[in-house]
């Protein structure tokens, strides 16, 4: 994210500001609730994914308990809002996320002290333990966590810097947007500081870091604590938006989601997790409406990325930069076009098989039937299965052939180019 990418960030901000108005319904005089809530979700997830990447991408720390700090930010915020509602906490709602962040920071200091004594696999295992520990604690301490039902609040605390009530989703969205921008800017700033740079250095070679005067443990600890701060802010925004926080906000699946978003977007580029969060949230909101199996698709996408594109989507995009700079992008056009039909066949075939299976099992239990372009599909007939399987297998075989050709062209195009630093 050097100067030349500034326009991308500006475009993203303008887009984020404008999108709600593209879904404005003039008849009802309302913004689309679905779109607003999806955008709000994106904001929180961007913060979660970026803060996760402070560990994974920037410090090389594979954490399995990141949701802990998001969750604690959420739970604490419910209590802050309740206190603010009764007037015993004189903090305007716009500044409540500061307290959420401090809650995340506080817990990350405690757990980080234990976890960051280690690195690599041992670190990952400790964080797994922390995640389990928090999950149990959430069920044990009823007063704070509210047990199975979680804790609830009312965000209309009538204390706002701008005299807003936050009764409408749009107001909440803009609050989230403001905090997302602030948190993103702050996290970017951190990457440009001595601590941020030494986190990279310790990731690459923690031993050498010691011989230039740094204690890698201390670097890990500070990085971990700060990442907890931002996760806590994300959790705070979650609490403000949904006015309820349950177990889901700190449980392991959300930690896994943070990892997924950061990884799919790309951990080697600052903006990678932003892309990942947007994409996964879109999938989650969009595909989950259409299909029971959306997690299957996310999972398969994740596995595919890990195997074929470990630098994530942004890594894939950036790999084209030296080629573009050498003016050779054109030579890749045809190979790309040729790879589309087999890839499409493979994807459609796969989706077909997954959906048919899912309608056979879950769908049947729910009494749903598979409808495609207005036609009801008989999932017990042989035809749909044959078509899907042929597309899947044929697509895979065809794609293999095409990807070899593609690989050859790619190699000849990049042979004499030096890779660009991410």
């Amino acid at each position, binding site marked *: 994210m050097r100067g030349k990418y500034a326009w991308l960030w500006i475009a993203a901000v303008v887009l984020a500001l404008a999108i709600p108005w593209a879904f404005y319904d003039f008849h009802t005089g309302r913004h689309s609730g679905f779109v607003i809530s999806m955008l709000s979700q994106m904001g929180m997830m961007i913060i979660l994914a970026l803060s996760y990447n402070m560990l994974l991408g920037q410090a090389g720390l594979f954490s399995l308990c990141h949701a802990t700090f998001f969750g604690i930010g959420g739970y604490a915020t419910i209590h802050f809002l309740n206190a603010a509602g009764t007037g015993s906490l004189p903090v305007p709602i716009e500044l409540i996320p500061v307290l959420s962040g401090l809650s995340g920071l506080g817990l990350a200091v405690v757990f980080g002290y234990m976890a960051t004594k280690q690195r690599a696999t041992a670190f990952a295992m400790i964080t797994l333990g922390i995640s389990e520990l928090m999950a149990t604690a959430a069920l044990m301490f009823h007063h704070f966590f509210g047990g199975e039902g979680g804790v609830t609040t009312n965000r209309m605390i009538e204390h706002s810097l701008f005299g807003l009530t936050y009764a409408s989703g749009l107001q909440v969205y803009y609050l989230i947007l403001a905090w997302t921008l602030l948190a993103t800017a702050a996290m970017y700033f951190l990457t440009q*500081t001595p601590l941020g740079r030494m986190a990279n250095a310790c990731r690459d070679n923690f031993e050498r870091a010691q011989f230039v005067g740094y204690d890698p443990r201390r670097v890990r600890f500070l990085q971990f604590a700060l990442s907890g701060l931002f996760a806590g802010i994300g959790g705070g925004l979650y609490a403000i938006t949904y006015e309820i926080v349950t177990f889901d906000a700190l449980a392991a699946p959300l930690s896994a989601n943070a990892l997924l978003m950061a990884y799919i977007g790309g951990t080697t580029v600052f903006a990678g997790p932003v892309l990942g969060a947007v994409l996964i949230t879109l999938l989650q909101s969009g595909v989950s409406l259409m299909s029971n199996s959306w997690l299957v698709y996310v999972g398969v996408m994740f596995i595919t990325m890990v195997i074929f594109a470990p630098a994530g989507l942004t890594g894939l995009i950036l790999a084209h930069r030296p080629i573009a700079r050498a003016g050779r992008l054109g030579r890749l056009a045809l190979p790309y076009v040729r790879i589309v039909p087999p890839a499409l066949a493979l994807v459609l075939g796969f989706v077909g098989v997954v959906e048919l299976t899912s309608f056979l099992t879950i769908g049947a239990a729910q009494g749903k039937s598979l409808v495609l372009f207005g036609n009801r599909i008989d999932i017990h007939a042989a035809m749909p299965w044959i078509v899907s399987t042929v597309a899947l297998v044929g697509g895979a075989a065809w794609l293999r052939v095409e990807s070899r050709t593609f690989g050859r062209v790619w190699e000849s195009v990049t042979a004499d180019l030096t890779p660009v630093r991410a």
Partner: protein
Amino acid sequence: MTAALSLRKVTKSFGPTEIIRGVDLEIATGERHAIIGPNGAGKTTLFNLISGRFHISSGEILLNGERIDALPPHQINRRGLSRSFQITSIFHNLSVFENLRCALLWSAGYRYSFWNPLGRQRELNDHAGRLLEDLNLTARRDTRAGLLSYADQRALEVGMTIAGGASVILLDEPTAGMSNTETDYAMELIRRVTVGKTLVMVEHDMKVVFDLADRITVLVYGQIIASGPPAEVRASRAVQEAYLGADFSAQAASEVAA
């Protein structure tokens, strides 16, 4: 005057095998000291003990008169002792410039700061820029360190070692694997950047050793068999017999004859 570095009866065992077997060594401030010895003699292990990478089994190590043998590496480094590695050890995903800047950060007083934007630290960046110049790596400034040529990586390794301005520098075979011209260039670089510092260097190239060193220590099987000025070491029968062998004897003889 206290020695820059003193080792007293230092031993180190890995399991049952004693690798360093009672080393006593005094290195004066400003001295250029070479450590030579056959493969597996324990030269790198000795550096690992001095720099805190391993803990000693017994004995004492003092830096400027103060015990350092129980300290972790980063604290030893902060007291002004810096080392390089025989097997290049750099931050391979960071640019050459970033590598040098990282090596400067602590000594420039930034500690764990997360509030100073690096781009704005004029003095720090200028310093890293000067180091690039010194190392002749300016053209490689933004190259990822892992992608440098071997010789350039070795230069960077030395650069990172001297960057923080440590007063005692340990270099572990800085020229290993280099061609003759590269070695000459590297030695000229090392000479230039270590002016006024205490230098301890492990080196296999005898020409380099005898050119550079004020004193030479010969380590064989974890013990010092000779230590003194080059002429003395060269003349030592024990050294010739125990370690240097035909190669060295021939070289020494020809040099004596010359």
